[in-house]
């Protein structure tokens, strides 16, 4: 991936990853686990959430990831149910952020159509929102892949009877290699392409563009 492309994606990814990790930490805190709060993760400060490999990956792969939020399942009243909610909170926060971007794009579209048709700032803002929204939908989708340490793997552990949520902590390194191969060899491209095609359909467009 070119440096220009990486720099273009960087703000959206940083926003998306921060909101994603914050949502995990905040939902855990609401469900009775204050360990993420103690670790300073109930915060929208990106530096609390960015990891070296995850940030480096933004420049090498088309995706990045944050520092995983460590949750103490023993603090949950219903460990499986609450871990499921906490795991889903990250991707849902990305989808919510994408929804907000789409709503704001309706505003920029109206502004472009009726008030400021030649104002380049409106156009830039519209496309910035489109980029952030798209990145967040991709982040949510990728995170639902059931391979550790992605959230999808935790969700399945909570849904399949007989499995224990902490089961997935082991062998994460092996899965990281699988994920790296998946992303670097572009085997994941068809999934991302499918998401992007559908996202483009729902994104509000500026008239004549």
């Amino acid at each position: 991936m070119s440096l220009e492309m990486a720099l273009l994606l960087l703000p959206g990814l940083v926003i998306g990853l921060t909101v994603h990790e914050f949502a995990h930490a905040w939902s855990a805190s609401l469900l009775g686990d204050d360990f993420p709060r103690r670790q300073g993760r109930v915060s929208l400060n990106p530096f609390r959430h960015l990891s070296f490999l995850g940030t480096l990956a933004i420049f090498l792969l088309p995706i990045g990831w944050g520092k995983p939020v460590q949750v103490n399942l023993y603090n949950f009243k219903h460990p499986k149910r609450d871990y499921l909610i906490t795991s889903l909170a990250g991707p849902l926060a990305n989808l919510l952020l994408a929804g907000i971007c789409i709503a704001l794009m309706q505003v920029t579209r109206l502004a472009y159509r009726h008030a400021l048709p030649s104002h380049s700032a409106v156009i830039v803002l519209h496309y910035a929102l489109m980029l952030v929204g798209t990145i967040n939908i991709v982040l949510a989708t990728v995170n639902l892949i059931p391979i550790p340490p992605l959230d999808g793997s935790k969700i399945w552990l909570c849904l399949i009877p007989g499995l224990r949520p902490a089961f997935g902590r082991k062998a994460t390194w092996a899965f990281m290699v699988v994920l790296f191969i998946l992303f670097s060899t572009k085997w994941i491209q068809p999934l991302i392409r499918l998401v992007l095609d559908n996202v483009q359909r729902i994104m509000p467009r500026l008239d004549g563009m």
Partner: protein
Amino acid sequence: MQWIGKLLSLPFLWLGQLTGMLKLPLSVPLLRTAWLLGGDGQVARTTLLAIHHRDGLHAARVQAARWMETSPRAEIAVFAGLMALGAGEVELAEGFLARGQGMGKDRDGLLELLEFGLAGQCGATGSATQLARRMEQQRDLPPVVSRVILNQLLWDAMLDGRHDEARRRAEHLLEVEDMPQAEMALWALAKLHGDQRRADKHLQRAKLASPQKVYFQVLGNLAIRAHADARELLSQLHSLDATLARNAEDFLQGKESLA
């Protein structure tokens, strides 16, 4: 100004972590630079661990003591305290715990691990249980500390005859992860109720080394007042692990004197 230092420290921290993962000696100076720039206690602890790996335990302990003089942090106090506790220097560890507690909470929640380790080291099971009860109310502990204190409370309930509470605790622990000690508690409770099939299932699930397994069988038998079975297993434990056997014998004598 502080955030500028933290920002500048990030590349050094990340490169230090990467070289550390690759076990390169370069990780120590990189992490040390990150710690000096950012002043983050967690980075100091990471640096001390890297020094431990590269130069050994003594070098890490000397460095921790030096940093406790020049730029003390709760995380450094925890590291120094746990190392002292591991070396059997209880008074020194207590000193580090007191200093660490004076600096507020460490973000990793390991101050509590040191505190609980010290309570256990003092030999008084009662004080460890009391501390565990207090810590159970805390919602900001790391999993490693919760696991230890909940296990302590489980076996306290077992040996105290509060079997319903013990079952609830064991089941809660097993909802989260494989926990051999909880399986052993459920084994004893199944045995108490004459459910041999269930008891065998729990015994099979408890993945423990042989001496530990026999140790918990002794404790389990004590908890359900099967003292004869406990004595029989105790003689077996003597041949496997003398320290564990002494520990179990203390419990057995305590129980028998109460009876």
